[in-house]
């Protein structure tokens, strides 16, 4: 490849980066404006739009809902994914490929489709003929948690499965040979080895649930709703600097999560040291 062509490619790639990242910085800059409309460059510097957002009571109601839903659903999703990935790795059942596919499937089913189906079941319950169970889950925290378990299942499953696949099985067998019960072998040998993947799976699950808009907007009520749903509704109605302030705050939350993830990933893996 000629020198000139390669410089063109590098220049092109940096242009792509600018197009991808610049909008995010521009929207942060606009949130500090003193004017009452969104403009760039912003006029002056103030935190009044942040104040305006924080003082709205709806954010105070929604933040705890979002946090509880994200925390509980990601813990459950990570536990279920880990158990299933482990069971698949350690047993030979027929249809294990199908089970894997089902655990990854929520990634490819369109969110609105999943939301529609869940909306029907959450509202009316699990019904076969005259038998019916549950229902009235729309607009409840439990309903949001149940939905987010499914949405955040695939990533921890993929990560834990990959990490179990790269694991030396003889370590676990050695522990069992030395008299450890399967449970003990799992908790003292396998679990510490796959813990980094479980943790990053958990953080991904948390972030997916925390950011989820579509399914949550179907399953929430005006009373019980999440932060992203409120932002989505606001962005549909108005486009004033408070929207920029909200999205900057959301961005700040993501940055904290990304930093946490990098810290988890940095942990040296024991398998690599050997």
């Amino acid at each position: 490849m000629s020198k000139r062509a390669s410089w063109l490619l590098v220049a092109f790639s940096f242009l792509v980066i600018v197009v991808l990242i610049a909008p995010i910085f521009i929207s942060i800059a606009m949130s500090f404006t003193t004017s009452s409309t969104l403009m760039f460059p912003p006029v002056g510097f103030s935190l009044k739009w942040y104040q305006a957002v924080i003082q709205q009571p709806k954010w105070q109601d929604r933040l705890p809902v979002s946090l509880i839903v994200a925390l509980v659903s990601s813990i459950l999703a990570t536990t279920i994914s880990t158990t299933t990935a482990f069971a698949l790795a350690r047993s030979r059942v027929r249809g294990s490929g199908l089970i894997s596919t089902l655990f990854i499937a929520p990634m490819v089913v369109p969110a609105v489709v999943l939301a529609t189906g869940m909306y029907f079941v959450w509202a009316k319950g699990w019904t076969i003929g005259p038998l019916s169970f549950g229902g009235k889950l729309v607009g409840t925290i439990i309903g949001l948690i149940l939905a987010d378990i499914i949405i955040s299942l695939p990533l921890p499953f993929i990560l834990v499965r990959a990490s179990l696949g790269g694991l030396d099985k003889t370590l676990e067998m050695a522990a069992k040979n030395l008299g450890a019960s399967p449970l003990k072998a799992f908790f003292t040998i396998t679990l510490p080895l796959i813990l980094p993947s479980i943790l990053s799976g958990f953080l991904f699950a948390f972030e997916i649930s925390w950011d989820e808009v579509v399914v949550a907007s179907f399953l929430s009520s005006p009373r019980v709703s999440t932060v992203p749903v409120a932002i989505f509704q606001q962005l549909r109605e108005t486009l004033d600097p408070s929207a920029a302030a909200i999205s900057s705050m959301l961005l700040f939350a993501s940055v904290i999560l990304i930093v946490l993830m990098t810290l988890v990933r940095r942990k040296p893996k024991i398998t690599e040291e050997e």
Partner: protein
Amino acid sequence: MSERNPVSRFSRAIGRTWHPSPALLLIPGLLVILFLFLWPLGQMIYFSFTDPTVGFANYVRFFETPSEIRSLITTMEVSFLSTLICAIVGYLYSYTMLRSSKTVSNLLMVAVVLPMGVSILVRTFSLQAILRDTGIINQTLLNLGIIKQPLPLIRNSFAVAVGIVSMELPFMVLPMYNSMVQINNKLLLAGEGLGATPLRVFIDIFFPLSLPGVLAGSLIVFVSSLAYYIVPQLLGSGGQLFLSQDIAHWVQDQAEFGYGAAIGVILLLLTLGTLFIASFFINIDKALTQSTGGK
């Protein structure tokens, strides 16, 4: 099960010999998938055939309404266009990563992965603020006197495609780069050694070998694009541009559940059909794993 093993005899003596099969651990996961994932989808399919009347009425209504057919076609058109743009931009980007120094390559990798951590709402909002009539692009061009009227950059399919491309580019670059890295350099050198021009080496050797990544990335981007809801809702023209918006409209605003469910089934079939056809050419599990691996 040798009785000579004192440990096993000991554990048997204290009654810990019965160890449940690890397969039993599959039960909680399967129950979750059955009741929280498959059941809702089944319920939706059931509703599409039974609400308000039993039969194919909802589907007939969909295919007899021109505006619905337009949504279906727009969804596929915009998704296809976005995938194509993503593939071209992503290929040049991945190729640059491959051919650059370690530092530049790492920088490019971080730059493409980083926005994935930012909420899709934040990024869509940022695009909305930039593309609108009073956004920076139009303002700058107006101030410079280059245009008299603001360019129509928002509330149309163009804006939606821009949105989708900027959200999906990482999912294109990751599998593409992954498959380019695996290409054996010796093959390229052999081609050059046998007298092929760099262009011939690229066309005859490099490009065919990088195709698996191109296919994997394009499949993921196309399938994800079909499902877009927030981006067309915030950057689109206000009507039901995409099938997802259509479904939300009938289920949430009009409470015509059976009809909304039928459109849901159509979108689901479109997605699964694409994956099914693609599964003859690539390993879908691997493609999905790759696209998230770098996250």
